[in-house]
């Protein structure tokens, strides 16, 4: 803990060697009595402390990180250094257009690239992450129905395998989220869908390839059914990596989509964010896009705000969203170009299908063995859990000991003992082969010395943590030395 190194009166003096000016004109009753209780450390102590903390993390730069649904591919260093050029870092968000043309050119071109690669009619870059994109998308669906006086639509349909943000976003937009079941083969249960569609349906939120790692084959039929019922289709772009440059959500019949640029466009995940969740729409939803957007008037780039776009659902952050993330994504898109984008889908699918095949050969069960994997796939460790008493969580924790970040566990919930594996296109064949060997080893350990696996990890900075205690005896902030 940084606080444990704190000594009263110590300071990082290079930063604050100027005098403390007096504050004569601020009334005493508005001032604080003591400086805030922040750590008092030297600059070097801080540098050493946070360097050491960083070393307790797994990351893409240090470990294979096949976290399903998260697209943990290499984050090119150039994207960071070019987005961090002084001109970009020092630009004030409210700087006039005369001092923004370089930045705005990047944003406008990014809008265009995203439009074409998804087959949508228009794009707004401002949502700060996938979930905010979902909010924007569902809010646009609502604005569309409201504008037509069609206010009896109260439900958004979401598959039972959907990410939790989908139903949560629907509710934030004032809708009820209604679940629809996934069929045995991993596709939506069409009969069940038909039953729940009706005049109360505002729309449906789908991920395709879905969260179970397979392509929804009857997407056109679904689009037809939903549209016939008067509903709109929302595309959750978390899995866009699987189809980039191969199929476009716009061509599948979706009316509105979000993209997770921190997945498909390789911006870093930063231990939790920031992301960027631009939204794309078909023509009929275009008036409702969130502001601000960038337009090109033939000679200059200009901002479009509430003034120019009176039907907009409004603004979702004070300025223009996560601009620095958007710049990184723009650099990535220019490095890749159109050929590079095709290859994203090709090689992420090649890696996933290869890895799945090898793991099946090694005795692991695929959740959907008859299906082609997309860029990710699900293993179910039901057999291991039942026969050996070693469950998915145990496997996941043991992988850490072998220097691999665990895949996504227990999502989607409908597959028991599920492990969602997404290798991404930037991993080499030998890394995939290593992973297969590690999985085989753990399986063998589970058979011969299950306690070793059930007690894992053994080599991390901490062993398994007491989550129950964390939630029952809340300790959420340092309260001084005990």
């Amino acid at each position, binding site marked *: 803990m940084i606080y444990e190194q704190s000594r009263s009166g110590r300071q990082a003096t290079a930063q604050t060697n100027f005098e403390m000016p007096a504050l004569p004109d601020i009334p005493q009753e508005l001032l604080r009595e003591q400086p805030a209780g922040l750590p008092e450390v030297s600059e070097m102590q801080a540098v050493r402390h946070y360097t050491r903390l960083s070393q307790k993390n797994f990351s893409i730069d240090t470990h294979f990180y096949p976290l399903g649904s998260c697209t943990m591919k290499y984050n090119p260093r150039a994207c960071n250094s070019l987005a961090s050029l002084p001109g970009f870092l020092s630009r004030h968000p409210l700087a006039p257009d005369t001092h923004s043309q370089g930045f705005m050119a990047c944003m406008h071109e990014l809008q265009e690239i995203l439009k074409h690669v998804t087959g949508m009619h228009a794009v707004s870059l401002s949502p700060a992450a996938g979930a905010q994109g979902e909010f924007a998308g569902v809010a646009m669906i609502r604005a569309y129905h409201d504008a037509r006086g069609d206010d009896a639509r109260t439900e958004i349909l979401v598959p039972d395998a959907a990410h939790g943000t989908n139903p949560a976003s629907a509710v934030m937009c004032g809708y009820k989220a209604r679940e629809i079941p996934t069929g045995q083969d991993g596709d939506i249960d069409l009969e069940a869908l038909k039953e729940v569609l009706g005049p109360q349906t505002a729309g449906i939120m789908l991920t395709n390839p879905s969260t179970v790692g397979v392509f929804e084959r009857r997407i056109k039929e679904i689009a037809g059914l939903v549209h016939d019922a008067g509903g709109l289709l929302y595309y959750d772009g978390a899995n866009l990596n699987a189809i980039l440059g191969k199929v476009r959500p716009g061509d599948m019949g979706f009316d509105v989509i979000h993209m997770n640029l921190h997945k498909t466009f390789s911006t870093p995940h930063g231990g939790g964010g920031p992301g960027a969740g631009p939204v794309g729409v078909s023509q009929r939803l275009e008036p409702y896009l969130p502001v601000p957007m960038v337009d090109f008037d033939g000679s200059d780039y200009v901002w479009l705000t509430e003034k120019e776009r009176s039907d907009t659902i409004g603004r979702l952050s004070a300025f223009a969203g996560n601009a620095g993330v958007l710049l990184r994504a723009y650099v990535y898109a220019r490095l890749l170009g159109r050929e590079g984008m095709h290859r994203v889908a090709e090689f992420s699918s090649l890696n996933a299908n290869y890895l799945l095949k090898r793991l099946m050969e090694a005795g692991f069960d695929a959740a959907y063995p008859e299906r082609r994997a997309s860029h990710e796939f699900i293993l179910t460790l039901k057999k291991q859990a039942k026969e050996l008493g070693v469950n998915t969580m145990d496997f996941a924790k043991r992988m850490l000991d072998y220097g691999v970040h665990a895949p996504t566990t227990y999502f989607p919930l409908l597959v028991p003992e599920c492990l969602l594996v997404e290798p991404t296109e930037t991993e080499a064949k030998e890394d995939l082969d290593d992973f297969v060997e590690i999985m085989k080893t753990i399986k063998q350990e589970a058979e011969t010395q299950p306690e070793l696996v059930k007690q894992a990890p053994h080599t991390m900075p901490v062993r398994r943590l007491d*989550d*129950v205690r*964390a*939630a*029952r005896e809340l300790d959420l902030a340092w309260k001084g030395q005990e």
Partner: protein
Amino acid sequence: MSNTPTDLRYAKSHEWVRDEGDGTVTVGITEHAQELLGDLVFVDLPEVGAQLEAGGDCAVVESVKAASDVYSPVTGEVTEVNEALDGAPETINEDAFGDGWIFKVKLDDAGELDNLLDADAYNALVAEEDH
């Protein structure tokens, strides 16, 4: 199911109801429900005086990995809640049918109790869910 008291009534959503014989009932969640949830870390209690509808959600029991609504099996007014659960949610894990009770309701219609399951019917329901 070693332990499904026969003097209680049960809802399909895994609540139990004890008829206190004075127009009020005590409500909790079953042993089976607490097992499914695992170690509880928090119980969100209804407010005394709140008017409940049979089948409406009125409390939440929370474990580390799940949060589950508790549905009122009956219609009526909340007369008392188990404040002790505030600091000790694990009481439900330890004694679901006893000290782990959640709230008491003054019944609008005592006849509603007849709509609930008896122990045998509830056990059958649980056995079926296990398949």
